[in-house]
């Protein structure tokens, strides 16, 4: 059965596998205590595939899913050195937004938010997207000016953003300290209603289930050890579980993107740094928006379980180490209390780190490389998770048609040779 673009389809068009999830099914299985069928099927590894995607995170799996449903390319393998979503897809703070600074960035992330809005229906998987609104606080005249700029660019591109004052901020987030006596007084904020949080593991699993149902092979615990390039063309990949012949390799890794690209002889303008995050014990719901402060290097949201999730800026030097540091949690706690003094008694449950591939212009690198058949979807810095669906959709189109679609045209690797950088530092994340 042919399905519509991006899997937007009627219920009757669904194939029999996977079994559709529904409330009635949950009730029936609860009564019968039947085991749930696996969400995706493990497959034996073949000698050759039409497309090999390196990286089983949201980017790689989304690309595989959209290759199958939008372009009918199903002879695809997704390889991951660990388990699905073990990298950046499971380590981010799950915030979605599209209030960027450059028109290229706004258009791109707005498409992503729109895909996320339909994702639960398209994938038949509850991704728990909560569009609760996103507040970026301004503590200085300079950042207030940048926010006004961002709001106007957003409005031109049709994205809902507005600069609001302290009174309105207090109404949206009563626990914020808006007194002028604060060390960093809150002068205003960029209010972005479509922003919110999502369950990042569910996004990964939903894409894996959808891709697997279309015939995509998912190979976990399969590390790529080499890429076979001859005559400027990709011939295949070498993995820890054997060789695979393929004409197309997509590098959709985070953290290891320079190492994978290096195997194909492609140098990238990327440095890798850890970014740390932390989560507290659950408390009663009190925070209905996402709070971000660039000056204080912190973003805060409350999950559906009541835990507060904190993220920070990237560590100030390059490293592949994913160990947390006491210094981070100390600094973070100070900054959070600066914003919400009422949280003094809340205890941190755990902290972790993920790897961020930073590019010189704080924008990703997507599209073809000088090696034919070797494509990249890398350099995602601190903003990769929120772009998963749109980059998967665009990279699928890029692979199927052989040329990058307009929405990712500004983000090609060649921009660094041409000096046509996309300056997104003002809005890509908090403090760099």
């Amino acid at each position, binding site marked *: 059965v042919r399905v519509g673009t991006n899997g937007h389809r009627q219920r009757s068009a669904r194939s029999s596998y996977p079994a559709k999830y529904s409330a009635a099914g949950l009730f029936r299985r609860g009564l019968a205590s039947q085991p749930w069928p696996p969400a995706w099927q493990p497959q034996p590894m073949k000698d050759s595939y039409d497309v090999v995607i390196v990286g089983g995170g949201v980017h790689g799996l989304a690309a595989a899913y959209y290759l199958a449903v939008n372009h009918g390319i199903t002879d695809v393998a997704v390889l991951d050195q660990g388990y699905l979503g073990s990298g950046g897809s499971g380590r981010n703070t799950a915030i979605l937004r599209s209030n960027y600074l450059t028109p290229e960035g706004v258009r791109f992330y707005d498409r992503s938010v729109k895909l996320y809005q339909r994702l639960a229906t398209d994938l038949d998987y509850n991704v728990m997207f909560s569009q609760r609104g996103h507040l970026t606080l301004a503590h200085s005249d300079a950042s207030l000016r940048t926010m006004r700029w961002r709001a106007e660019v957003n409005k031109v591109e049709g994205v809902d953003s507005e600069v609001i004052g302290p009174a309105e901020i207090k109404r949206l987030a009563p626990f914020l300290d808006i007194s002028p006596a604060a060390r960093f007084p809150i002068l205003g904020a960029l209010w972005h209603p479509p922003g919110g949080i999502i369950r990042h593991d569910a996004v990964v699993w939903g894409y894996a289930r959808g891709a697997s149902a279309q015939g995509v092979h998912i190979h976990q615990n399969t590390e790529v050890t080499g890429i076979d390039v001859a005559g400027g063309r990709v011939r295949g990949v070498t993995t820890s579980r054997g060789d695979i012949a393929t004409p197309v390799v997509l590098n959709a890794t985070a953290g290891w993107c*320079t190492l994978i690209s*290096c195997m194909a002889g492609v140098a990238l*303008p990327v440095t*890798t740094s850890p970014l740390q995050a932390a989560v507290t014990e659950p408390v009663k719901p009190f925070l209905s928006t996402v709070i971000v402060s660039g000056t204080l290097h912190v973003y805060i949201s409350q999950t559906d379980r009541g835990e507060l999730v904190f993220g920070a800026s990237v560590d100030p030097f390059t490293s592949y180490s994913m160990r947390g540091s006491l210094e981070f949690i100390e600094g973070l706690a100070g900054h959070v209390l600066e914003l919400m003094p009422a949280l003094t008694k809340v205890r941190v449950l755990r902290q972790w780190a993920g790897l961020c591939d930073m590019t010189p212009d704080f924008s990703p690198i997507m599209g073809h490389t000088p090696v034919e058949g070797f494509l990249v979807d890398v350099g995602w810095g601190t903003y990769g998770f929120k772009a998963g669906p749109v980059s998967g959709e665009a990279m699928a189109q890029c692979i199927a048609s052989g040329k990058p679609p307009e929405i990712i045209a500004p983000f090609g*690797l060649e921009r*660094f040779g041409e*000096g046509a950088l996309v300056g997104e530092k003002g809005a890509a994340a908090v403090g760099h």
Partner: protein
Amino acid sequence: MILLPCAWCGPRDATEFAHIGEVSARPGPDEVTPGRWRGYLYLRANPCGWTRETWYHRMGCRRFITVERHTLTNEIRSVSAAGAMTPQAPGRPGAEDPPPAVPPGAPPARPSEAPARGPVI
């Protein structure tokens, strides 16, 4: 975070320093092509392993040092004044301050870790 043994001040917290980045040879401005110059500006080896990099002790002696660090374990193998080739004992000043940029004689990133820089730009 990590402790960085400054060549002049001894072990200090890494937050006192600014991480400048990998040591790479700057091409001569007179003969370089725009493509090679942009490669020098943007492309990085970014190895997962030992790397030679420049740090600036901004909250201390305000001098530049060259550090050999393992990027996976953050272990530090040697520290020297930027531009000087031999490691020095912490606490003793070295030769004259080199300019902040890497001198032309400094070896590039080790060949085994440096990716081919040709085809991209």
